[in-house]
């Protein structure tokens, strides 16, 4: 009996391996074919996209909502490229799993997102296995001018491979946080816009001491991640979580003297009750709640309409005379200019799988090219005349039901979030406070030096180093550890946890 079972197990194992080996070459042929065809194309002439046959095109993206089956924008895009276009939305934190599942099963959507630069692992695997096409080749071959123009955006070279772009990155611009303030308190106390971090501290102190609503208000409230991310840039002059060269050697932001100064600054605020003592427990909803009920003077949150309205609406119920404002970011005392974290400037990007035939590849990219065009941008941000709105006496009259279903929350259509989310969203924003903050952030943003760092070692070390950093950050800010006397203990533990190997990885990556 034992022999029979052993034989069965060996047979199953052999059959599985044979099946796997047989599958690999099939998946790599698409890219090779594309390369050959592109080489054959005349460099001076552009090929014409074959629109004869009706196709089915599925776009896979992430987001908290689903797309209505009768979506007007997708139908319109479909008519442009003679295809039935659908969009599969997966919730953000399950997206990589869902995508990997589709990839492993070989059922690729025709256009899909990856979470670059946050998740470079998936992108690297796709590239290595030749599962995605070189978009640059196709843009040249078919003359997709809007795609070509997209590849000239700032810092986009970070995603370029030696022979072109295999991803069309979604340009978001700098991270858009804002310092929301109780404007009525500012006016009542006659306070001025703080120019540097010392003045900002005084600004908070005056509001906390005055406590105009009598709710024992704290000075600054936020979730801890956003606080460190934004102020680390203010103090160090580089983007949050970034690296900089010191004496020719790449050094992580957390080991800079200026970073230490930032932690000392926060420890001071914390000690004096000017920083929310629930910093490590706050959720965005808690932050909204504190700001809307007189329990905080300043809140650091996303500088977006959704977040602002979640504070402003309840604040006006709580006190109809209250006002919500946004102040400009201060510079670090002693520095000559304001620096705001810009991050990579890109968040996610789209790919076209190499498994598709030539016609489908070209058709998908024709759609992408159209979305990137001026006309396409208007369609995805404002809608289609006759579908989403009608013009009556020169005024737009919206077809409420259709518009609300396709443009959820009055935001641009989600197909626009694939590659031009920021641009399309900001073009329809009307709130001057948010627009002014956005202009200020863009003017003072610093982008990352190291974008898309990836290797197996980096994947292994990053969570370990982050844990050590977060642990010590918390100790320093809350006063559990003394920044002056215990700083070396932190550095030692950081080094022991693999920092020198991480430096080597950065050196290797940047010298490539």
């Amino acid at each position, binding site marked *: 009996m034992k022999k029979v079972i052993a034989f069965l197990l060996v047979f199953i194992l052999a059959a599985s391996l044979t099946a796997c080996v047989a599958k690999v070459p099939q998946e790599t042929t698409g890219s090779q074919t594309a390369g050959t065809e592109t080489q054959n194309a005349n460099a001076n002439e552009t090929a014409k996209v074959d629109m004869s046959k009706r196709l089915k095109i599925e776009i896979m993206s992430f987001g908290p909502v*689903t797309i209505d089956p009768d979506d007007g924008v997708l139908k319109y895009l479909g008519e442009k490229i003679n295809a039935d276009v659908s969009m599969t939305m997966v919730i953000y934190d399950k997206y990589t799993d869902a995508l990997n599942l589709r990839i492993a099963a070989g059922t690729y959507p025709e256009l899909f997102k990856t979470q670059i630069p946050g998740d470079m692992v998936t992108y690297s695997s796709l590239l290595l296995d030749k599962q995605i096409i070189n978009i640059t080749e196709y843009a040249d071959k078919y003359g997709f001018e809007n795609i070509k123009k997209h590849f000239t955006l700032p810092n986009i070279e970070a995603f370029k491979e030696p022979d072109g772009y295999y991803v069309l990155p979604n340009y978001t611009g700098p991270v858009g946080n804002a310092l929301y303030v109780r404007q009525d308190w500012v006016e009542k106390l006659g306070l001025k816009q703080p120019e540097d971090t010392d003045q900002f501290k005084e600004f908070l102190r005056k509001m906390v001491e005055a406590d105009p609503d009598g709710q024992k208000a704290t000075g600054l409230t936020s979730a801890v991640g956003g606080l460190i991310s934004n102020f680390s840039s203010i103090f160090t002059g580089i983007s949050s979580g970034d690296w900089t060269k010191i004496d020719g050697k790449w050094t992580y932001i957390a080991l800079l003297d200026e970073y230490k100064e930032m932690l000392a600054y926060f420890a001071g605020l914390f000690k004096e009750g000017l920083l929310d003592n629930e910093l490590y427990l706050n959720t965005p909803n808690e932050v909204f709640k504190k700001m809307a009920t007189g329990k905080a003077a300043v809140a650091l949150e996303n500088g977006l309409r959704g977040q602002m309205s979640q504070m402003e609406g309840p604040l006006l119920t709580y006190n109809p005379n209250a006002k919500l404002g946004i102040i400009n970011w201060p510079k670090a005392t002693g520095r000559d200019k304001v620096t705001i974290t810009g991050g990579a400037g890109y968040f996610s990007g789209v790919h076209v799988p190499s498994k598709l035939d030539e016609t489908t590849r070209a058709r998908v990219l024709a759609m992408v090219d159209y979305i990137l065009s001026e006309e396409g941008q208007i369609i995805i941000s404002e809608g289609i005349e006759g579908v989403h709105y009608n013009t009556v006496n020169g005024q737009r009259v919206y077809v409420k039901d259709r518009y609300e279903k396709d443009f959820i929350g009055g935001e641009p259509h989600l197909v626009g979030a694939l590659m031009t989310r920021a641009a399309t969203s900001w073009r329809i924003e009307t709130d001057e406070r948010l627009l002014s903050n956005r202009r200020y952030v863009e003017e003072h943003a610093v982008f990352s030096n190291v974008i898309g760092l990836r290797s197996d070692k980096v994947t292994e070390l990053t969570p370990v180093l982050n844990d050590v950093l977060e642990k010590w950050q918390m100790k320093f800010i809350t006063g559990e550890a003394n920044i002056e006397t215990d700083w070396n203990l932190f550095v030692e533990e950081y080094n022991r946890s693999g920092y020198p190997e991480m430096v080597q990885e950065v050196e290797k990556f940047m010298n490539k």
Partner: protein
Amino acid sequence: MKKTTAGDVIIYTLFVIIGLIMLYPFWYTLVGSLMTYNEFINTVFVIFPKKITLESYIHIFKMGSIIEPMKTTIIITIFGTILSLAMTAYTAYGLSMQFKGRNWIMAFIVFTMIVKGGLIPEFVLYKNLGLVNTRLVYIIPFLINTFNLIIMRTSFMEFPVEIKESARIDGCNEFGVFFRFVLPLSKPVLVTILLFYAVQYWNTFFPSLFFVTDPEKKTLQDNLYRILANISDAEAAHSTTSVVFSENIKMANVIITTLPILVVYPFLQRYFIKGAMVGAIKG
């Protein structure tokens, strides 16, 4: 009659307090869903809303994204539960009989409780069977739950042999024995398993997340997860998309998603307690 002592009072008071603490999150969710967002955010400890409003519920149904998931969930719960109950009862009855190889079959079935194929093979299998993107993917692979099968089989094994034998003597064939005697006399275990299956189908989440892309065929739990997860911090920080669902809309979604299955319990409670005890002793 036993006299109530001070100890009893303390114990009962303690239980009442613990009970209220347990119930409060549900009450908080229910009341929160009936408040305006502005009132909700300005209230620290919610007992009753100042003014009851259905605006969160109206908003949800107006958005329309809950209608199709609700239809799907109701369909799979009704049909899935009936089919699963039937399949489990047939299999359990068969396996409760004495025949050669019974233990081998049972071992194979139990094996599926311990070893799973994994998500990718599962996806490939469902795809090849044509189940992906259909409502059948919520039912067919989950027709028989091994745990429920074991409970039901144990219950059938405990069924008095004398009753079966007398039925056979009276001319009943095996189907007659099963349908006329075993099933009617096993109501508690059937109701218990029915409830288990109903809850299982009502809570269908992963198959919807991974095996269904058509928004019209998504389930309620998947829909709820989207709303509760909302936009992630990373996503929000890098975007301008402000699709933010307020807390009381989230709460209204929780109520819509949990209440229907919750109200079933009191009606089936008397069978459920009896049924849960069946098979608890002998395995």
